[in-house]
């Protein structure tokens, strides 16, 4: 490998400095040109509107005056806001934890099954993720409905009373997390299944020779090999789950008494329904600094590990 590079360098040196320079220039220009559509798309359609959204968050309610961080200062005095922060954190962290756990376990079981049969299991287990969430959440709403709940019907047949799935604060939080886990676990499953399949068999066999049982194989072989993919999926899911809007909106709309509100639904209530767009923007942006820092650390770790490998 080293010889090839040296040979290439020699070849270029012999043909003169100008072509070496032009080659170097060509590489970075090609790189830039290839990345240009990405830069343009993100710049125009995400970065610019985001900056405008941040600007909106610094205006007063009637959007006539600049108040800087005054909206945030106001938000921090509201008891409901801190309740929303707590609820969003519990929702996102527990949902992502269960999604990752279930996705990991299911991927393992599917991997264990002989390859011929895997196809139908994969297909069946992928279904929740494939149905548009706007519509599958409606199905869950119908399943939890106070008057018509199919689950309550079964419970009543068994003699247990009906459960107020969406009416009691604790059941409502459970319901929202359940639907999110149901929807998101298949995504983790396919990502982890792909990663599992790319772990070389020799490592497992070597571990078996050393007398490792299944738990040790998992801990010392599987998990380290999958560290990157686990980090990326968890990070991505955390970001997306913190921003989740559809599930809470359709199932409980934040109720009862605001006890299932998350950032996105609370921002919508304040911004659009109560006509205070700057305040809504503040709520939406609250997690941004925290998640951005987490993302940067995790991604840097992945990059470093990738460079070392």
């Amino acid at each position, binding site marked *: 490998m080293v010889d090839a590079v040296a040979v290439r360098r020699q070849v270029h040196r012999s043909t003169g400095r100008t072509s070496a320079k032009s080659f170097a220039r060509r590489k970075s220009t090609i790189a830039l040109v290839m990345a240009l559509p990405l830069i343009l798309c993100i710049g125009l359609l995400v970065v610019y509107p985001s900056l405008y959204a941040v600007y909106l968050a610094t205006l*007063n*309610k*009637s959007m006539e005056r600049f108040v800087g961080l005054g909206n945030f200062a*106001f938000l921090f*005095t*509201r*008891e*409901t806001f801190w309740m929303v922060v707590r609820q969003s954190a519990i929702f996102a962290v527990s949902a992502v934890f269960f999604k990752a756990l279930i996705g990991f376990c299911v991927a393992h079981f599917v991997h264990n099954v002989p390859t011929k049969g895997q196809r139908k299991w994969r297909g069946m287990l992928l279904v929740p993720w494939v149905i548009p969430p706007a519509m599958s959440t409606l199905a869950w709403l119908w399943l939890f*409905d*106070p*008057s*018509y709940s199919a689950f309550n019907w079964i419970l009543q047949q068994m003699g247990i009373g009906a459960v*107020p*799935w*969406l*009416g*009691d*604060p604790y059941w*409502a939080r459970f319901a929202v997390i359940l639907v999110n886990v149901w929807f998101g676990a298949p995504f983790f499953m396919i990502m982890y299944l792909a990663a599992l399949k790319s772990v070389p068999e020799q490592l497992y066999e070597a571990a078996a020779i050393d007398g490792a049982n299944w738990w040790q194989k998992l801990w010392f072989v599987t998990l380290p090999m999958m560290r990157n993919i686990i980090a990326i999926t968890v990070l991505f899911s955390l970001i997306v789950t913190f921003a989740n809007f559809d599930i809470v*909106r359709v199932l*409980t*709309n*934040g*109720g*009862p*008494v*605001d006890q299932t509100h998350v950032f996105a639904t609370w921002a*919508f*209530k304040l*911004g*659009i*329904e*109560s*006509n*205070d*767009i700057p*305040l809504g923007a503040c709520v939406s942006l609250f997690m941004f600094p925290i998640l951005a820092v987490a993302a940067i650390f995790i991604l840097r770790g992945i990059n470093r590990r990738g460079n070392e490998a």
Partner: protein
Amino acid sequence: MPSNNFNRRRFLATSVAGSVAVAAPYVLTSCATRKLSVGFWDHWVPGANDVLTKLTNEWAAQEKIDLKIDYITSQGNKILLTIAAEAQAKSGHDVLAFPTWYAAAQAKNLEPMDDVMQPLIAQNGDVVAVTEYLGKQDGHWLGVPATPGSQVKGPCARIDLFKQHVELDLTKMYPPGAPADKAMTDHWTWDAFLVAAEKCFKAGYPFGLGLGETTDSVDWVGSLFAAYGAQLVDAKGNITVNSDATKQVLEYAKRLVPFLPPDVFAWDDASNNKWLIAGKGALIMNPPSAWAVAKRDNPQVAEQLWTFPSPKGPKGRYEPGLPYFWGVWKFANNKAAAKSLLTYLSQRSVVEQLVQASGGYDIPSFSGLRDFKIWAEQGPPKGTLYNYPPRNDEIVWIAASPAPTPIAMQIYAQATSTKMIAKITQGGESIDKAIAWAASELEGFMRV
């Protein structure tokens, strides 16, 4: 940029024309193409949209306007999204439908409609107080009351269950086609309501009164509060939640809630409909959409449904009302045509056709337009909607009025009154604690 083919004069002409076009695009387009773009509320009654389209097209043909109609649903709050986005972008439809609070919220972006409303009021009669409260800001009308979507949310109850368990004949108290029975209506108070709720609960058919955060829940609680004179914020903007009236109404609510189904705290706008249509409940507070669906899906229940006014409280009989408005943006291209359209749509003959198409669901805001035959004719049971439009001593009201609209809107959207009731019942808090919580919320709403 001129090409070499233009001679000097043509270059000047085109550049002048170009700059005029840039400076005053709306004037040119309105004169040149006579276009109008309209966003109406998407009516749930099948066929109602078609009638409105037909009527609007007739007007457009008459005035030779190139018309574009969109029907915007309130599902997912799309109509609110549209209003917010168009207000920010200063671009969109010329005429748009605004639910309840949102015309007042966009006061500074809407074209004053005084010149349209004065003649309409002279012609059709006064509007109810709530329409003026919501539609007029700083002395100027911001929109014209729209017929499609404007509704009232009084009780809709089961005649048979009331006869059997409450010993009250609803059809006698509020007969179809005749004045209400004064003796009986005087006894139809919130206290009588509480007794009826208890009786129906014990009989296994509880009242289905939502205590969630959607409009159905906020509306009936609002009229309950008004009936007891409990104001959260008064007309001048002072926080008056800590009052005897509030304590009185919260005590009442505490006695009422045990007779309601346990999960009312999560009910949305459709839950009470389903409760009634499934035959589980004796009464809900809802416009006739529940009865209309029951007609299709559960005719035995539909035959026994009767719509009538709310109970009376110490301070009067308050009926929750939700007017819609049609407003014209300040940035609209063709304001003259827009105003002409809105005047046309408020003419008696047109309003009658719209109400007919909605099956009597829509209630015009002008007092002179409440005497259409449709309400007496709808059935079965015949006359079920006769007492739907307010006729007697009902005061049509919206929760949180008469507070200044920016504050009231937040009280409404965030369901402060309903949450107070939820806190003292499901939350187990004391009345004083709930009032203190409400006071701190209201302080936050005072933000400017």
